[in-house]
């Protein structure tokens, strides 16, 4: 124990003159790896597409043109049109926004809930700890995606009914917006299925970091628990949390598409890659490109986010990197 501590001290004093921060070091390691550099490029591209795509998209993603359905790529429609004559490129761009928004927010919710519950469990111990962890066990004994599908399938109609009643009583427009409700349900369902992993990770981080000598020293000097969290726990745990967050990101995009594909996620008129695949699956023999395009885009994105997560893992936890 003491040996590793002195190791850390010598390491720090060696690196100190170069004034390289944890983050710039990690960034250098990240871009040195060609695979992660490539995936970083795709990730940035998808981010830009999700933010600016809808403004740049050549057509309205809901605009139908029944005289030009299922067209192959043309000069007018760069990627062709789907079975309702909607421009595929525009729908893909809006789909990118859907996928990213859902992944970001559902991961955000699950990590916030996970952080709070994980921290409470780690700090209180005893029966509160076992209660929270047992609850996590319960949620983890479902197949992850099936739980999200189950939740979003069962709560959809009651929530839609409740929202409609609120709209009828108050007249506030937002409660009539079914796409909005779809989004909320998907956020909730995905977060509900994935918070136990976040809670376990954060609890484990706190429990193991807390035992370090520097935390003990800090406490001996009279640091308050909040100061210990800010000075020691957060900076040390943040790497692992960022890595897990990114690693789960591709999975969350995939889960959104899966829910939408099954008809319990973002439904039309909302645009989602999963819905696009489902809608064109019936005609796969006649118009294979309609299935292939959203499929390939989805696969490439998930792959890029996973690779990026792997690269980030190697960059932020150099000790854990595998040969």
């Amino acid at each position, binding site marked *: 124990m003491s040996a590793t501590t002195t190791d850390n001290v010598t390491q720090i004093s060696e690196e100190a003159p170069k004034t390289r921060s944890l983050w710039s070091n990690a960034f250098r390691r990240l871009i040195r790896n060609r695979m992660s550099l490539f995936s970083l490029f795709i990730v940035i591209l998808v981010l830009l597409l999700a933010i600016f795509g809808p403004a740049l998209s050549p057509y309205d993603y809901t605009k139908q043109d029944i005289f030009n359905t299922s067209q192959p790529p043309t000069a007018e429609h760069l990627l062709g049109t789907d079975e309702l004559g909607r421009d595929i490129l525009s729908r893909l761009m809006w789909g990118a926004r859907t996928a990213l928004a859902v992944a970001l927010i559902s991961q955000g919710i699950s990590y916030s809930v996970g952080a709070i519950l994980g921290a409470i469990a780690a700090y209180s111990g005893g029966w509160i700890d076992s209660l929270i962890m*047992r*609850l996590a*066990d*319960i*949620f983890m*004994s*479902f*197949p*992850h*995606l*099936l*739980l999200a*599908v*189950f*939740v979003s*399938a*069962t*709560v959809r*109609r*009651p929530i839609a*009914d409740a929202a409609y009643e609120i709209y009828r009583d108050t007249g506030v427009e937002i409660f009539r917006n079914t796409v909005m409700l779809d989004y909320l349900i998907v956020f909730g369902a995905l977060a509900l299925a994935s918070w136990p992993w976040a809670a376990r990770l954060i609890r484990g981080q706190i429990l193991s970091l807390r035992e370090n000598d520097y935390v003990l020293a800090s406490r001996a000097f009279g640091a308050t628990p909040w100061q210990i969290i800010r000075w020691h726990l957060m900076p040390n745990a943040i790497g692992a949390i960022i890595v897990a967050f990114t690693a789960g990101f*591709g999975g969350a995009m*995939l889960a959104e*598409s*899966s829910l939408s*594909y*099954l*008809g*319990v996620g973002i439904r039309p008129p909302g645009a989602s890659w*999963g819905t696009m*695949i*489902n809608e064109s*699956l019936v005609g*796969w*023999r006649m118009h*294979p490109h309609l*299935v*292939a395009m959203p*499929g*390939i885009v*989805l*696969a490439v994105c*998930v*792959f890029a986010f*996973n*690779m990026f997560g*792997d690269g980030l893992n190697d960059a932020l936890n150099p000790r854990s990197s*595998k*040969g």
Partner: protein
Amino acid sequence: MTTYVLRRLLHMIPTLLGVILITFTLGYYGPGDPLQYQLGEQIPPDPEQLARLRELYGLDRPFHEQLVDYIVGLAQGDMGMSISVQAKRPIRDMLGTGLGVSLQLGGAAAVLIFVIGVPLGMLAAYKHNSLIDYIIVSFSAMLPTIPVFVLAPLLLILAVLQLKILPYSFGWEGLLDPRAILPLFILVVGPLLTIVRQTRSAVLEALPQDYVRTAKAKGLGNRQVMMRHILKNALAPVVTSMGFVVASLLTGSLFIESIFGIPGFGKLIYDGLRSFDYPLILGTTLVSSFIIMASNFIVDMIYPLLDPRVNLD
């Protein structure tokens, strides 16, 4: 050993009850009145008939009574009736038939995953940093990220439309039918590569160990060192991923069976979702969580047998 098994089983009871409580609350009670939605799809139901139906399904009784009834029913193997207008069969029977088909498909997939995956992983580790290793590793990073509902149509386009090497695979005539090839392949491909990766890193970890050097020094051939010493040690962590394999086979079957028209467990989930058959959705979700719990339990039972260092108590 017996006390360990018993303690693990006892430990599962609260989790089991929690799972049942969550699924029942959401699946049976969450929709408010499942019948209302089911019938409302067709024609506005006659209130009197609706009341009779509600009584028939026990929906007019308070929540806790229904929950207790459901648990008592479960203990006797009864999972209620499907409320779908077309089916209206006991869910137990539907699940029985569905699981029969899916077990064949999933069982074959699981065997293939381990029989192909472990040797491939060993090969990759043994030829570490060679071309074979790179090919295996990059495939194992790429293929599992392609979702089943993307891989299936892409392979259909490739194998059926372009190359014309397979017949249009829709339907189910048993495992030996050529139509089973494509679904089985897709089901295997994702988890297979995880097993390859797991085996590879476990073997890589074992290679520089002292006992391997000792075995080599004793004059054992590569094959014998691999089989007797490395594999035995590397297998334990690979077995732990069986839980993961079962989960991905379950999730995969949902998409594969609906795309290829295979009347298995996954198709039941899909049909339940499509027809708002809440008791069926509840039943399938519950059974899939039972399967996960059982496979985790089995892994925990096997693990100490493979790795004597693990202490049961």
